[in-house]
């Protein structure tokens, strides 16, 4: 019952604060989904404290969702510049593989190696997009195809296990009773938000996504900014990869981050950032990630197999796409205002 006293007022306050902002819709969807679970899924809101640590489905949602939340931070900025990064899943696999490989050397080397190689992967994408001027979807496709092969090269095709307490703590440890991954996500979120909202960087990113040529003519350093955005996405993917490897205490090059790039893109779009770029909702992406993760956990709690769970996910993707479609919005607005039929038809093209 204490959980109810915390969750619902928080959600209500968030909804009220954002009542005129784009964040309202993903928040509302999340609130409805939680309400559904409160009523129909027994045990969903049960939390218990064991060994000074919180356990329960809601904590699982936060812990499991942390990887996609990390990816979504980087992906939001990439998408805001009008690009997309398909390689983050493969980058996760490489970072996890390097960390596991270096685990025996020392913990700082393992962490630094994993993050370093992820930064390199991001720099490679950034170079292709900004210097070679290759379309982002194509440029990052290269690493998406080759990256998992590179990760397998690093692990020599084996699944490398590690036991170092510090590395295991990263994905499984607790801080103040909550999963450490949650602190990691919050830290990265605050850092990113400060970087893009307290400096001009966010404005630059939005200007480039809106109209790159115009941005360059006004003197914005379009190419360096784009390069940095991909490096940042690489860093986020690296962190997510380290967490993913730590979760299972091993590096599985075939499965770490598989299809997570698609989840991350979906999350960002659900959160209210348009794929066309030009504006972004950093907090929206986190809410989107929570929404997708809660949906997944809900299905799991209701005994829908993971294999079949892609069907509701597909329905969510299509529903969100439709809700964001300018055509459908124009039609709905037309229904409300009843303008002459010809005017809306012209607008659909």
């Amino acid at each position, binding site marked *: 019952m204490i959980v109810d006293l915390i969750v619902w007022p928080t959600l209500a306050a968030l909804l009220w604060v954002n009542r005129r902002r784009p964040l309202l819709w993903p928040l509302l969807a999340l609130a409805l989904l939680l309400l559904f679970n409160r009523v129909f899924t027994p045990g969903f809101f049960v939390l218990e404290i064991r060994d000074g640590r919180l356990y329960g489905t809601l904590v699982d949602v936060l812990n499991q969702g942390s990887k996609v939340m990390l990816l979504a931070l980087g992906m939001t900025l990439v998408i805001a510049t009008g690009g997309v990064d398909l390689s983050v899943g493969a980058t996760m696999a490489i970072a996890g593989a390097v960390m596991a490989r270096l685990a025996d050397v020392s913990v700082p080397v393992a962490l630094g190696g994993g993050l370093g190689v992820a930064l390199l992967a991001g720099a490679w994408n950034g170079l292709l997009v900004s210097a070679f001027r290759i379309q982002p979807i194509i440029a990052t496709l290269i*690493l998406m195809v080759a990256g998992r092969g*590179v990760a397998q090269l690093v692990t020599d095709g084996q699944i490398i296990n590690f036991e170092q307490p510090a590395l295991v703590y990263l994905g499984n440890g607790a801080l103040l009773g909550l999963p450490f991954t949650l602190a990691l996500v919050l830290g990265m979120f605050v850092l990113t938000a400060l970087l893009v909202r307290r400096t001009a960087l966010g404005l630059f990113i939005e200007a480039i996504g809106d109209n790159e040529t115009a941005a360059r003519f006004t003197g914005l350093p379009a190419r360096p900014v784009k390069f940095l955005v991909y490096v940042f996405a690489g860093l986020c993917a690296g962190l997510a990869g380290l967490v993913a490897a730590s979760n299972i205490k091993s590096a599985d090059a075939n499965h770490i981050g598989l299809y997570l790039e698609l989840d991350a893109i979906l999350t960002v779009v659900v959160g209210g950032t348009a794929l066309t770029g030009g504006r972004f909702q950093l907090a929206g992406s986190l809410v989107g990630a929570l929404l997708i993760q809660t949906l997944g956990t809900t299905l799991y709690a209701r005994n829908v197999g993971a294999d079949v769970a892609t069907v509701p996910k597909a329905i969510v*993707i*299509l529903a969100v*796409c*439709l809700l964001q479609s300018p055509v459908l919005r124009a039609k709905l607005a037309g229904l409300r205002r009843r303008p002459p039929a010809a005017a809306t038809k012209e607008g659909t093209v």
Partner: protein
Amino acid sequence: MNLAKLRPSAQILPVLASLGVLILLYAGGCVAFENFGSLRVLINLFGDNAFLGVAAVGATFVILSGGIDLSVGAVVAFTGVLIASLIGHGQPPLLAIGLALAFGAGFGALMGALIHLYALPPFLVTLGGMFLARGLSFMVHPESLSIDHPFYGEFISQTLSVPVSRRLAIPFTAFALLAVVLAGAALARWSRFGRNVLAIGSSESSARLMGVPIGSTKILVYTLGGFLSALGGVVATFYMQSGNPASFVGLELDAIAAAVIGGTLLRGGVGYIPGTLVGVLILGLIQTLVIFQGTLNSWWTRIAVGGLLFVFIVLQQLTARRRE
């Protein structure tokens, strides 16, 4: 006049380059390994990669129109499971195949309609399609299902294959691949539909101003993509004699890679269907080479494909920039 004559050769350059890579790879394999040049290897190259080739032709059409189809692998898997399940329930194979093809076309048409009518990004709609088809295939049957029917056993693998020698025959799937590539090439080159697709891929707004029917063409191109994915799935059932809902994960990437290596620009408007066949054969040859080499591990295939993708994309970028 002079320029107009030059342009096709500049566009066809990537295709010639990939043809060169194909020949080099094949020649290299023949020099390095004893039995590489045998007819069996060549026939298997076509037969084993037929399903990928058929699906890749569909993906190429979608890319030519400026779109992308991420649902290829899932639709191929769904088709296989659907056919295996229908035959398992006593339905005649031809009916099962017909239903699967109709499903593929309908599925593609639905995605195309969403993309066109609601101006949605193809990337997201086909991503939704991928999740949907993958989930549906697990709903049809949760695990691998073998096809046990005389039509599949004798008819496809013996009656319809063409014997070359006593122990070697060209499988039916190889012919299916060639037929689809030829038909696709003709459709892209000489039909009104093909020209409309290329026009939309080059510039949708110009195409609209010229009076090209945008809506019907776009919906048709995704319908064709879905149909060819399903046909790829049918070909795959001939080859594997089973349907598996967990199979062909990431096939869409191979299809896209084959199209790009074959000279199709991912931003649409430029490309050749025969080039896609070359791309598919290159992917197949890399795999064969890795198998022949023996000590190389399978992940080298992915790295090699990624490296080739990089080379060809940069090559495209350089030729495109020179033209500007």
